[in-house]
């Protein structure tokens, strides 16, 4: 298992390099000009100097190499410094002082390091999208278990229908729908997520809860639809196995048979499915974030795109790719650990 993990980790390096080249070339081929917003009164030679100051004068491979060095060498240094200086867990370690003021990946919009902005935006995304993922899983698991246990019952049919709807209604419509119903007509919840809100006491916590309900609901519907389907299929696979009959025959209670024997075995594929979905927590909620005005990562990517902020777009897309590759690996390794029948080597 360890050799397999190491082999996969090593193999993921060329994969990630290739993905970064693809993204970089895609952005380089783009005809957009970052100087388009500069007033026309600025003379061309000054514009040229500004362009070179942004690092646009160098050949493509030099630009790519610089980005690579900044992302993989300088940014980790900054991160380690932050860990040993300000973080809660490692703050007691001596300050490493690795970072000595080299150029980091700079956003063209704000002229500040891209990673600083990402770190600012990450909590909002994690709160809203991560919470909705957890809520979705918590709803989906019981639905999947029960509809498999009572296959073709009324509950199962209803569950199938609801998850079909969850698959079919795109988030930009379900989001608008819940805004019209709960925010406009009923006036229960706000339609705009206020990210500056700070939770200090019970009342402000209730406000925070209120504003989180709508986006979480929209995102959780999709998670629920997917995971409950997988859970049902996986439970059905296991319910007809011989070991279930044995468990019943030796007189175990039905609840023990289903919730211990069958559930534990059917959770194996579900856990990998859940792991595979985690990257979408970080990047997939672009539409929902736009709709509810959550200024998270997805919204950051969208504004960066419209503002032609290539370093920001490059870095964000690459972070998403890293997460996808990483969680694919984690899912495969988890599957091997949880299911002793799987042997990779």
């Amino acid at each position, binding site marked *: 298992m360890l050799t397999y993990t190491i082999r996969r980790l090593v193999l993921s390096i060329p994969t990630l390099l290739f993905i970064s080249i693809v993204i970089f070339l895609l952005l380089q081929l783009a005809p*957009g000009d970052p100087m388009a917003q500069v007033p026309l009164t600025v003379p061309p030679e000054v514009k040229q100097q500004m362009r070179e100051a942004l690092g646009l004068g160098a050949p493509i491979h030099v630009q790519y190499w610089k980005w690579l060095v900044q992302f993989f060498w300088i940014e980790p240094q900054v991160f380690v410094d932050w860990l040993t200086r300000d973080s809660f867990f490692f703050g007691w370690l001596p300050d490493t002082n690795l970072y000595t003021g080299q150029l980091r990946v700079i956003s063209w919009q704000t002229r500040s390091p891209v990673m600083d902005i990402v770190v600012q935006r990450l909590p909002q995304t994690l709160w809203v999208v991560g919470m909705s993922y957890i809520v979705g899983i918590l709803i989906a698991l019981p639905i999947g278990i029960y509809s498999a246990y009572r296959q073709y019952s009324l509950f199962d049919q209803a569950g199938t229908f609801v998850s079909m709807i969850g698959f079919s209604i*795109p988030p930009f419509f379900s989001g*608008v729908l819940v805004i019209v119903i709960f925010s*406009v007509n009923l006036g229960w919840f706000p339609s705009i997520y206020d990210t500056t809100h700070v939770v200090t006491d019970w009342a402000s916590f209730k406000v925070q809860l209120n504003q989180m309900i709508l986006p979480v609901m929209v995102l959780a519907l999709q998670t629920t639809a997917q995971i409950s389907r997988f859970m049902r299929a996986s439970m059905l696979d296991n319910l007809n196995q011989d070991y279930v009959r044995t468990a019943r025959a030796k007189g175990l209670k039905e609840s023990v048979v289903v919730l211990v024997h069958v559930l534990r075995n059917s959770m194996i594929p579900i856990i990998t499915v859940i792991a595979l979905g985690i990257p979408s927590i970080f990047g997939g909620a672009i539409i929902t974030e736009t709709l509810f005005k959550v200024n998270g990562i997805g919204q950051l990517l969208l504004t960066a795109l419209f503002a032609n902020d290539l370093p920001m777009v490059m870095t964000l897309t690459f972070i998403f790719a890293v997460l996808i590759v990483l969680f694919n690996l984690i899912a495969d390794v988890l599957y091997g650990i949880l299911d002793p029948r799987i042997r990779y080597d």
Partner: protein
Amino acid sequence: MTDQNVNAAAAEVELYGALKDKEPPKEPRSQWRDVWDQFRKHKGALIGGGFLLFITLAVLIGPLIWTVDAKQLDIRNKDMRPLYTLLWDSTARTSWEKPLGSDNLGRDILATLIAGGRASMAVGWTAMILALSIGTAIGVCAGYFRRLDGPLMRLTDLFLSLPILPLLLVAVTLFRQPLRANFGPETGMFILIVGVIGITSWMQTARIVRGEILALKEREFILAARSIGTTPFKIIRRHLLPNVVSPIMVSATLGLATAIITESALSFLGVGFPSDFPTWGKLLSDAVPRMEEFPERVMLPGILISLTVLSVNYLGDGLRDALDPRIRGR
């Protein structure tokens, strides 16, 4: 002479009689008849297929029946409500000329919905066909030619680990200008959106087709075909492709659904077609700012998208059951 023959025939009947059936054999049934019989049992799939057919026909021949131009401005009759609002609000501004109302520039909503559906379905079908062709080609090549298997599957894995929605956004935003300049605003955008959706959604089809081909390749009929000297291309066309039609059809339905949703999502985020070219997603996103006063402008395109996708999903569900010979006949 004849007597002898008759006797011989009688003896033959006597000899093999035990092997013959007493009653005449059943009428031979074609495979597609079995498929259709199984498909008919799935009510959801039947309704879904019917609705998809209805929508496709409606957007195709709708403009011939409802001949109002979708781009015709009619400022005097702007902000009309649909006729059904009369049911609860008799003072609403409605008109039989505009059964589903008109938007803030007086364009007829029924006509824009038909035109938008036309664009959405065209994008969905073309992108799906493109993705299917790429996926099938790569899957067949990877499954049949052992030397291509490794590289092609690595390529598929690479594409699977690309962040799709961000890349779609990047590609559409960045390549909008040159394509528009070359092919005109609408055709350019159509090519771009169909292209990027097709290029980023063939991976599942390729994986499924490769798996099927790998299993089929080892069967005897392929060996027989090869032993009489059939060329690889002919084996693929004549023996392999007809046998992988059913998984391809199932992934076609999924592909159509995702293509329609992706196009609408792009339009919703404001990177889709130009603003005077309606698609369902565009209509929905244009109506969001005023959805409190005119909820129907959000609801109608949204419901149409959702119903189309829902019916396509049900159709795929039914097709999967009908095309699987292990489930069929139960």
